[in-house]
């Protein structure tokens, strides 16, 4: 279940397959680690007051893969632990499905918690990945903190 301490390295992955959070936690686990912090982003049923049915995630895949790798490497240096893993999903996700998981382990809890929070912040800020929202009020591109109606999609076509 847990990796040998000497084999633990920062890990990142981007792809359409469902995310196995337990597998990511196993990657960062080791006998010297007293703390594992995990963050899961889940598709929720509302956004900016709109009822959401599903999200479609797309990416500039080559660049996003590089950015995710840079983020976990930087987190490893910044928080002094190599045990950092992130996986982001692409494609159509229903409400309740997991879009992203971060797992971070360290000797002590503060580093694990701080690394986990930092990685998800950076992923959201830097990784070239986009959500397209399909819901009762139509189809919207989500862009940073804002959103705008997708062209050629009238309201209520979700």
């Amino acid at each position, binding site marked *: 279940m847990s990796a040998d301490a000497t084999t633990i390295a920062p890990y990142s992955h981007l792809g359409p397959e469902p995310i196995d959070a337990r597998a990511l936690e196993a990657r960062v686990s080791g006998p010297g680690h007293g703390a594992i912090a995990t963050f899961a982003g889940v598709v929720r049923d509302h956004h900016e007051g709109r009822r959401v049915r599903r999200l479609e995630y797309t990416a*500039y895949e080559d660049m996003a893969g590089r950015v995710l790798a840079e983020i976990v490497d930087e987190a490893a240096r910044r928080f002094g632990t190599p045990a950092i893993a992130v996986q982001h999903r692409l494609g159509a996700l229903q409400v309740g499905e997991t879009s992203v998981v971060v797992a971070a382990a360290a000797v002590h809890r503060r580093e694990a918690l701080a690394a986990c929070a930092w990685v998800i912040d950076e992923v959201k800020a830097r990784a*070239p*990945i*986009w959500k397209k929202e399909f819901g009762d009020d139509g189809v919207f591109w989500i*862009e940073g903190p804002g959103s705008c109606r997708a062209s050629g999609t009238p309201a209520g076509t979700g």
Partner: protein
Amino acid sequence: MTIRVWFFARFREAAGVTAIDFEVPPGTTLAALWEMVQRRVPALGQESHPLMAINQAYARPEEVITPGSEVAYFPKVSGG
């Protein structure tokens, strides 16, 4: 030189294609190429602050494009 410009997310929908090749003179910046893109794709005419990348890394508008570079323009990201 020929530069292939990639679009993503809403910009890709606006362009109707994943990429367009542009013939640009040496010394062309990302900002200058974006103006060429906007002339070619009027649907992107209102986009004054796209994110820009050269060779899969974020780059600033004043950065000069070198031969063989992969250039991309896209809206604010929303992963997570």
